[in-house]
C-alpha cells in the first residue's frame, strides 16, 4: 500500500510555546544562532487511496483553524 507522511505544524502567527521553550533552552546547551523553532507532529501511514489524505487531514489529523499540514507521499 502506498506510504505517506503528514507533517502538521502550528499556523504562522499563532504563538507556539513549545517552539519558544525549545528555542530558549538552546543557548544553555551551547547551540547559538538557531531561531524560529516550531514544534509540530508527524503522522506516518499507509493509504489505499492517497487522494483522500487531504480530506483526512482536514477532518482529523489537523485542525485547519490552528494548524497547517503537508502531505508527502513516499
Amino acid at each position, binding site marked *: 500500500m502506498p506510504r505517506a507522511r503528514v507533517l502538521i505544524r502550528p499556523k504562522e502567527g*499563532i*504563538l507556539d*510555546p*513549545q517552539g519558544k*521553550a525549545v528555542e530558549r533552552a538552546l543557548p544553555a546547551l551551547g547551540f547559538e544562532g538557531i531561531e524560529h523553532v516550531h514544534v509540530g*507532529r508527524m503522522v506516518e501511514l499507509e493509504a489505499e487511496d492517497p487522494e483522500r489524505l487531504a480530506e483526512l487531514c482536514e477532518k*482529523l*489529523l489537523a*485542525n485547519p*483553524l*490552528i494548524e497547517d499540514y503537508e502531505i508527502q507521499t513516499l
Partner: protein
Amino acid sequence: MIWGVLQFPGSCDERDALHACSLLGEARLVWHEERDLDGVGGVVVPGGFSYGDYLRAGAIARFSPAMEAVAELAAAGGPVLGICNGFQVLCEAGLLPGALLLNESMRFVCRQLDLVGDGGERLSIPAKHGEGRYYAPDEVLDGLEANGQVAYRYAPGQNPNGSARDIAGVRNEAGNVVGLMPHPEHAVDPLTGSTDGLRVFEAVAAAGAPA
C-alpha cells in the same frame, strides 16, 4: 429535564458534573458508545482527557456515537454545556467556534479564579488545564463579541492561559451550546468554598429548549 453527562474513556470530572446536575434535576451518565440519548433533554460534556487527548484534545471524542446524538440535540435547540475537555470536544466538533491551545506559560494551571459573565455577574470558579488558551482569528472574535457569544471572560488580570481577549467561555449563535475552560461543577457546594458554578448550569438550562 433529565441531564445526561457524557463519559468517555479518560473522562475524569463526570462524577462532579453528575452531582451538579442532580442538584438541578434528574441526571444520569451517558457512555460514549450510546447513540440514543433516550429521554435526556440536556447534556454536559465533562472535563478530563477523553481518549487520552491523543492527536489533539477533543479530536477523537468528537467522532463517538454519543457526540452524534449531542450534535442532533444541539441542532434541535437542546442545552449543551462543555466544560474544559468538553469545551475542547465541542470546538473540535464544530458546535462552538474557535480552538483551545497550549497555555502560553507552558504550565498546567490549577487555581480558583473569577469569571465575569456577559450579564456582568462575577463568579468564583476553579480552573485546571494545560491547554486552555482560547484562540480564534480576529474577525471571528469580532463576530463573537458583536453577536453576544462571549459568555464568560476571566476577570481583569486573571487570565491564566493567554486566551484571546480574556475569553473563558463562548456560546453558539443560537445560545443553547456553551463551553468554558473553568470548572463550574467543582463549585456547587459551600464545602468547597463557592456555589457560583450552579449559576452556569442554570444559565445553560435556561438558554436551551429541553427536547
